[in-house]
Every structure is written in C-alpha cells, then in structure tokens.
C-alpha cells in the first residue's frame, strides 16, 4: 500500500539532517544520544561500525581455519577408533549413500560460511563505489547473509546430539572434537560481523551527493 501524502521525491533522514533510530525507526532532530521511544543508542553512520564489521569478520575467518583442520567428532567402536573433520564427515555420509544429508552438512558447514565471508567483505568494500551489483541486489545479498548465516550452527548441534546420544559403553562412543568449539565461534563472529553492518550504509551509495 502506498502511504498517502508520500508522493514527493525520496529523501533520507540523513540528508534531511536528522537521525533515525535503527531499532524502531523513530526520527530525531540530531542531538540526543539515545532514542526517545526505545532508548537504543542513536549511532550516526560512520567508520566505527565498519571497523566492527572487519574486526568480527577477521576473527571469524581466523577461527574457521582450525575448525577445518581438527576433528569435529571422535568415534570409538568395538572395532576401530576414528576421528572425522567437517569435510570428512560429509564424505562419510556420501559413502553411506545419504546424499541429501551429506549435501546439508556440506552446504551448512562449508559453502555457507565461506560464502558469508566473501559476501560480507564484498558488501563492506563496495559501499562507496558503483559495482557489478545494483543497490537492490546488494541489499538482497545482505538479507541472505542475515537470514542464512545462523543455519551454519547446525553442525555444532549435530555434534552435541551425537555426543549425548551415542554413549553406549564398549559398543560405540562418540565424543566432540576441538573443531566444534572453533566452528561455533566462527559462526558467532560472522553473525556479529553481519549485524554490525548497518544496511543504511549500503543504500547511502545510491544517493547523488548532496
């Protein structure tokens, strides 16, 4: 529905010299440090939020490396003892013929995290330049990162469930590996990075200079 009375050209709160609350949308004349309705801190867009984006992103990439090197699961059965990494676990599933689940694991723990690193870096780098993607496409990318990012946590939950479930004395025991910790941290850091990226920065690029 169109809002009546909104027919005039588009203006942003920033260009009108005002500051909008990022939580509830209330518009303030610049001045107060906190929103008058929801008490959230009012943060004029600046370099500060971008620094947080890069810091969390870097932390996420760094802890993602050990997550792939060290074992995620340690399995002990009567016959053998084995350790499997993230990619190794997906390959095991493939060999057992569970293609669908192998795909879920691979997508959630490899494709999505790596795709997110690239997407956030691209969005942060392309803020003030015209690029291959239009503003609307960039915004879509941002929404996807926000929406899908959480689902990477699935592998951590699988490890937790298996470790709790498969404790059958001498028959089979599954224990978590250290990679579970670094993977969980990587997902959390990347989520924080995406949350620090103010979507309004993406749209600012669209405005002709005032």
């Amino acid at each position, binding site marked *: 529905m169109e809002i009546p009375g909104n027919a005039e050209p*588009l203006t942003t709160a920033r260009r009108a010299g005002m500051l909008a609350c990022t939580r509830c949308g209330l518009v303030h004349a610049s001045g107060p440090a906190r929103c008058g309705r929801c008490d959230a801190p009012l943060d004029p867009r600046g370099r500060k939020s971008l620094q947080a984006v890069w810091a969390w992103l870097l932390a996420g990439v760094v802890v993602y490396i050990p997550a792939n090197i060290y074992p995620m699961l340690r399995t002990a059965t009567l016959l053998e003892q084995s350790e499997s990494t993230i990619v190794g676990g997906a390959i095991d599933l493939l060999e057992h013929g569970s293609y669908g689940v192998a795909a879920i694991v691979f997508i959630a723990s490899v494709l999505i995290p790596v795709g997110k690193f690239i997407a956030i870096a691209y969005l942060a780098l392309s803020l003030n330049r015209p690029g291959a993607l239009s503003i609307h496409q960039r915004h879509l990318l941002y929404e996807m990162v926000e929406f899908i990012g959480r689902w990477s946590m*699935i592998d951590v939950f699988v490890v937790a469930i298996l470790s709790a479930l*498969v404790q059958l004395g001498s028959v*089979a025991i599954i224990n978590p590996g250290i990679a579970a910790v670094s993977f969980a941290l990587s997902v959390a850091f990347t989520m924080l990075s995406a949350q620090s990226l103010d979507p309004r920065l993406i749209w600012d690029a669209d405005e002709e200079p005032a």
Partner: protein
Amino acid sequence: MDRLAPGDRQAGAPDRPLLACLTCDTLHYEPDVPMNHVATCRRCGRVLAAPRDNAFARVLALALTSTILMIGAVFFPFIDLSVAGLQNRTSVLDAALAFSTGMMVPLSVAVALLIVLIPVTRLGAIIYTLLPLVRGCAPWPHAPLAFRLAERLRPWSMAEIFVVGVAVALVKVGGLATLSIGPAFWAFAGLVLVTVLHDNAMCRYTIWKSLETPSR
C-alpha cells in the same frame, strides 16, 4: 524529548510525524494504515507497518504456546537409541551438556543458551511487553527495553535450527542402531511452526506505537 516537530521537514509540509525506513533510511510520513493492509517502503520495499485485527492477542497466544512447548521440549526425552541390548535416552539438556568436559565447557553453555535460555528469555520479554497491551492497560515499566531485547535476541534464538540438527543426527546414526523419537522432538517441531507464525503475525510498528502512547 527531542522528537521531531511536525512540519520541520520542509516548508509547506503537512503536519504529520515522520518515520524512517529501518533498512534504507528513507523518510515517510507516519502511515495511517487500515487494518489488514501492509505499508511498504517506497525505495527498498521493506514492510513498514502491517496492522492486523487482534494482532497483540494473537502474538501473545503464540508466545504462550511456544513457552509451553519449550517446557515440554526440555524435560521429555527426545530420542531413544538402542543397540545390542544397550539403551540410551537423550533429552535436550543432555545434548546441551555433551560438551561438559575440559575446554568444551563454554560450548556447553553456548548451546544451552542458543537452544533454551535465549528463546525462553525472548518469549518472556514478548509476553511482558504484550500482556498489559492485550488487556487494554498501560504498558508495564521498561516495556520498550523488554521489546528491544526481544528483537535483539531474535537471530540468536536457534530452537528451529536444533530441530533440523536432530534430523541430521538421526540419519547419521540410523545405520548402527534402532532409534525412536520421543515426545520432546514433536514439541520442538511444533515450536518451529509456532515461531514462524509468531514472527509473521508481529507488526513491530504497531507495537512501538502502542508503547509510545500508553493510553490504549
């Protein structure tokens, strides 16, 4: 407070308060949206307001349902595993405590937070915000803070992801043991469904407006 005085925007502007799109910062006059209509941003298409009949009561009912399902999900066993005469029952708490040795302890805490404590806190904050509004009273003290907390926690509330995790785990061990799904799993699955309905029914703009004018 330093609320924007109507008409500040430009000469000759009608006396209507402004609202900025949360995504792209575009200014709109505060929408006066009829029930069951949706107002969207002219620039990026984000939903600005979508009031519905009895929206508060509906969201509150869904939040209460989720809370009850959550209690069931935590305290009943959710999978039964048996192999060669050995049996193991797992509840959500067991899964959360699976990382309870050595360096894994923080992960145990994090899992408990993500699948139980954060969802419960979020539900509690929503109920606290909406209960007085549904009964037609003034909002309780600090309701804006509670609602902001609920919004903040939304991405970190991962019960639905946990349910899919259970399904993946079932396939992984399916070959080597007999499994049966307990009542808690169905409670969790129901929780996912209710959460989706709940997020769709909630018009944040209407809630913020109601918190602002405590007279309704």
